[in-house]
């Protein structure tokens, strides 16, 4: 069975650069911009555990299952 893939998005407008998602992600999906905000480096590594989504204090990370792949 093919690996299930997810789309990870970060709303840059809401992100306050706390770094929680970057530190907690078990598969290192996130990287940091020059300002320290989260950006998605490697969405294919996401396992859909939702740790980032549940721990984002600013509600800016969203994980959705990718369709038709």
């Amino acid at each position, binding site marked *: 069975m093919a690996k299930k893939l997810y789309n990870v998005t970060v709303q840059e*407008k809401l992100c306050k650069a*706390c770094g929680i998602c970057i*530190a907690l992600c078990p598969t290192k999906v996130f990287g940091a911009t020059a300002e320290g905000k989260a950006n998605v480096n490697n969405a294919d590594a996401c396992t859909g555990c939702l740790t980032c989504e549940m721990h984002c204090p600013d509600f800016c990370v969203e994980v959705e299952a990718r369709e038709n792949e």
Partner: protein
Amino acid sequence: MKEIYKEYFRGNLPHIWCSGCGNGIVMSAWARAMDQLQLDKNQCVGVSGIGCSSRITGYLDINTLHTAHGRALPFATGVKMAKPEMHVFVFSGDGDCAAIGGNHFIHACRRDMDMTLIVFNNHIYGMTGGQFSPLTPFGKKSTTSPYGTVDPDFDLCKLAIGAGASFVARGDIFHAKQLTDLIVEAHNHPGFAVIEVMATCPISYGRHNKIPKPADMVNYLKENTVSKVRADKMTPEEVADKIVVGILHQHEPLEYTKEYAKLVKRLQGGEK
């Protein structure tokens, strides 16, 4: 933005909390709990006092009351007495609930009215500049205790159990999924439910205590919490410096508003 956030928040984001503040994680756990409970939003009331955590009522898309310092529970008691069918959620901080509203907290526990109290324990008065609160652990630094506090540790959950609350639980922001489940169980409990949530304040607490990174504070909770089930199997010495999370106490309540309704019915001659 996720659908549940659109459904349960007013949309006036970003919120005022600092970068890495744990309050936002509790707020999202509450939204997930609401999604599981599927309550009518018009029948829900959120009541809060004063403080960082109490600003939450400005963002929730339910009926909300932002009240006097430490007095969230008396206002909530009034709401519940006037409209016993409403679902009442009270949001309070550690200073708001344990210090200024300490007496109200004891009597709300004693009265055992059907409502859910969520205490955001970030160990500090964040909004007023980082003074130590009754729940600041022994020896920790703050702006008013630059050499460390000399106050002994204070356990709010033990106070709640002692005062007679029928549901007492402790959660933390690292275990966000468990926190959601605790809020659901606390709401479904027919009496006064207290959840002490170990939250983080990287700005006013973390910076003074050499853990300035929000992620390090969250990881501290990961390493220093043990579940109630596991703590019961450990020796008292092993549990001493750990934070025990889970449902700590639960008993069948004698719910105040139901007893009051019975009294009214009896005095009106409906029931002998």
